[in-house]
């Protein structure tokens, strides 16, 4: 739970108030000018509406150079960030040909498969030549190749479920599969901080959606008891089924799911568990099998396991793993299987190869090393950040660590200053987080070396002092930061 300091909350509100007031003032003048020139779109309501549009024009655009920075290399431990400039107060940004080589603390490249890999890349290229980049067809029609078959077996085996189905995009996996599993008369109880794809899927399903407090099993139990005893609203019929949706690692919080407790509760109340492992599969667990392995949960107790390949595996697409029957039913009727083009074959090959490396089936111990490295790197980096006095969210072992910024002005300040010193970090603001809880987010990769991490810590510490985000000032400044040995 984030408890925002009182003074910070006040100053954050004040900043947003100021931004809002100035924005409104500028909009007022704009309206006068617009009225003067009288638009030619008479009879049409404006295509972009209200507050959302206001937010983009007057708040987001001012700092848009902190987001969507183009890069011109693979998103490896170091990458090339393309410099941009603006001639109209940040309204539009133009690319230059200049690049700066930066340390990458932003990409979800947990295991370092984003860049060229000695095992994966040649195989991906071979598949590209054999199968072409696309099948131009959906899986049920003509889009199933031998690669896709192999991939599904491989994934089912890896996550520890009898069968799996793969789609071409993680977002679609969630948003197209939830409506198949549940509909009117069903109840979805979703963690309050679940990813937008889950929210959209739940909304698209037509089922009733209730939320439980983020990662709080006791509240989940309370909601469950309340809902089961009351049944559906108005009619009080019993619910047809209840699905609990949680994520393995929450990407904006860096927290691990309290899976054992949640699974126990679901078992007790006969609710189905849907686990989204987008950020945890491959990244945590002794052999990279995700939170179930890390927290000692039997995968048989999780009814639906979902995950994506865009993170640890450095590819694209998503999977659903479950019992043979569930997968068979999904393959029969899931729109992502019926209507969407199948996963690009080289991407499928990349996943297969990455899993082989992780499991050591490539004949080396590179996978095990990667897994050990990401864990050490993450725990080291997290503890160092905490020692420096930053407010760092999340749990140990999780490679995602948000640093709270709060004030809107600190978003661009932190991001730009870090970039100046060749460290690329991600800052997250509304709409990905609540308005007040802006943060920077660091994603650690197995491909970061110790020097990389030390350098990053040094820069972040310096910028942190400059921007004033060390909300928990620590004991005397740590000189030994540089001396700490990485195991």
């Amino acid at each position, binding site marked *: 739970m984030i408890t925002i300091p009182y003074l910070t909350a006040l100053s954050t509100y004040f900043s947003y108030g100021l931004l809002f007031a100035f924005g409104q003032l500028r909009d007022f003048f704009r309206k006068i000018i617009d009225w003067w020139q009288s638009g030619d779109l008479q009879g049409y309501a404006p295509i972009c509406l209200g507050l959302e549009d206001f937010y983009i024009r007057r708040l987001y655009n001012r700092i848009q150079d902190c987001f969507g920075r183009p890069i011109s290399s693979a998103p490896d431990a170091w990458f090339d960030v393309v410099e941009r400039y603006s001639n109209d107060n940040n309204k539009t940004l133009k690319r230059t040909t200049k690049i700066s080589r930066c340390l990458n603390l932003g990409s979800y490249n947990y295991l370092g498969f984003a860049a060229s890999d000695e095992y994966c890349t040649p195989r991906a290229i071979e598949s590209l030549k054999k199968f072409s980049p696309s099948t131009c067809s959906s899986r049920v029609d003509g889009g*199933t190749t031998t690669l896709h078959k192999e991939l599904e077996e491989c994934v089912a085996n890896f996550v520890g479920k009898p069968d799996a189905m793969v789609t071409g995009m993680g977002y679609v996996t969630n948003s197209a599969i939830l409506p198949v599993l549940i509909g009117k008369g069903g109840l979805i109880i979703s963690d309050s901080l679940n990813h937008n794809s889950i929210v959209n899927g739940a909304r698209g399903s037509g089922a009733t959606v209730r939320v439980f407090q983020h990662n709080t099993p006791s509240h989940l139990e309370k909601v469950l008891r309340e809902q089961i005893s009351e049944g559906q609203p108005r009619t009080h019929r019993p619910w047809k089924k209840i699905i609990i949706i949680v994520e393995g690692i929450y990407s904006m919080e860096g927290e691990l799911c309290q899976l054992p407790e949640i699974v126990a509760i679901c078992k007790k109340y006969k609710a189905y568990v849907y686990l989204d492992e987008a950020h945890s599969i491959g990244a945590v667990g002794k052999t990279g099998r995700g939170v179930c392995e890390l927290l000692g949960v039997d995968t048989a107790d999780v009814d639906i396991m979902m995950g994506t390949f865009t993170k640890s595996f450095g590819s694209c697409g998503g999977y659903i793993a479950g019992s043979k029957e569930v997968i068979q039913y999904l393959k029969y009727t899931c729109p992502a299987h019926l209507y969407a083009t199948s996963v690009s074959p080289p991407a499928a090959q990349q996943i297969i190869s990455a899993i082989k490396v992780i499991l050591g089936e490539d004949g080396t111990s590179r996978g095990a090393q990667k897994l050990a490295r990401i864990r050490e790197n993450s725990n080291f980096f997290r503890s160092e950040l905490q020692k420096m006095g930053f407010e760092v969210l999340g749990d140990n072992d999780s490679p995602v660590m948000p640093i709270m910024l709060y004030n809107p002005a600190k978003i661009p300040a932190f991001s730009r200053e870090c970039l100046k010193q060749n460290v690329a970090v991600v800052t997250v603001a509304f709409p990905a987080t609540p308005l007040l809880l802006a943060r920077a987010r660091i994603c650690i990769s197995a491909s970061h070396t110790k020097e990389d991490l030390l350098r990053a810590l040094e820069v972040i510490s310096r910028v942190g002092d400059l921007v004033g985000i060390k909300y928990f000032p620590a004991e005397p400044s740590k000189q030994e930061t540089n001396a700490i040995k990485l195991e």
Partner: protein
Amino acid sequence: MASSFLNIVNATLDWVTATLDAPSSRAIVFGVPIGGHLFVEVLLFLVIVFLLSQKSYKPPKRPLTEKEIDELCEEWVPESLIPPITEEMQYEPPVLESAAGPHAIINGKEVVNFAAANYLGLIGHEKLLESCTSALEKYGVGSCGPRGFYGTIDVHLDCEARIAKFLGTPDSIVYSYGLSTMFSAIPAFCKKGDIIVVDEGVHWGIQNGLYLSRSTIVYFKHNDMESLRNTLEKITVKNQRAKKLRRYIVVEAVYQNSGQIAPLDEIVKLKEKYRFRVVLDESNSFGVLGKAGRGLTEFCGVPVEKIDIITAAMGHALATEGGFCTGSARVTDHQRLSSSGYVFSASLPPYLASGAITAIDVLEENPDLITKLKKNIAVLWKGLSGILGLSLASNPESPIVFLRLEKSTGSVKSDLQLLEDISDRLLKEYSIFVVTSKRSTLDKCRLPVGIRLFVSAAHLESDLLKASESLKRVAELVLKDHI
């Protein structure tokens, strides 16, 4: 008895009126003479207000005890997660052992592939493979991040610029998946209260987008302009408030579900008359229709600026993956922060973006691909004319040739069974790979099912002749009891 009671009441009333009237009959407050009845009315009003402010009677609520809740939880039996598996759910699609080009290998046998929307025959194209390979070597496979967070690779921006330049629009925005393009773009512009008039035959991606937008959805008859006109008329005349709402017409250029082509020139006329905006899905027409392959706008001679939002999947004619949306700068910029499938998903693998750029280059350099495709469609049409039991239901220019049963059996399920028989036998006996239209249980489209043939510029004339010959023969065999 009753009359005496009445008398008493009347007398009392008289007395009350008199007493009230007497002192105040000449009282004037702020120019209003205060009569007795006014006094009574004010009294009455106060009483009503008093009564209204009281809580209405509710039986006292007795919350369930913990024990009762325990029992209820104990008793509750959920349905199983999925319905029982029936035989039709066990369908296994054919597995390709090669690229999905015009000639593919299934079960070790070479077949002619009519299942891939590889309209320009770019699967396996030398240049495309080259550009994908070099991009893959340079950037790796995945982008490992959403566009906002270092997932923007320079090729994405180049790809967006290339598409915009090709279509003559100010800007475009690339999505990482074809299916998500529509269902993200629509809710970015349509919200609760807006009105969307939509063709009843649109594909699931659009249907889902409409549902998620929570706008008011009005369907019109499939590709029927008269029905569209009536619908628009009804909405604008009946509803004066409609003028202040955002109004959209959503259509597909070539309908995936029927192979029909939307008459865009008429739609634009209607749109301008009734002041609606048009959202057009060009997934199956981009790179196919029009002289240079710019899609339906070029085909119908409509300036591209007249269409407010154009979306398309790149997994068809361009033979890569992903999708794009294009329109005015306002339209594309708005999506960069408001479109959920764009903001909350990792970006398109860079090698696919690079492939898309090359595919457009190839298309621009070889306009004869489109001529070839057109010719192939015509050859197939000619070959299929006079087929028994089936009728050609698609537009003669559409790259999706859609055959539907001349006489439906009355149920979609048995219709599909018949059609699947045909496609199975075609594959097994004649090595022709065609597919039937499959419907998800979530799909609201009610158009008749059929057999779909995706024609490609890379099909040889002999392929097309063989396909039409065998299709005719098999259809006659399978449908002979049915005609």
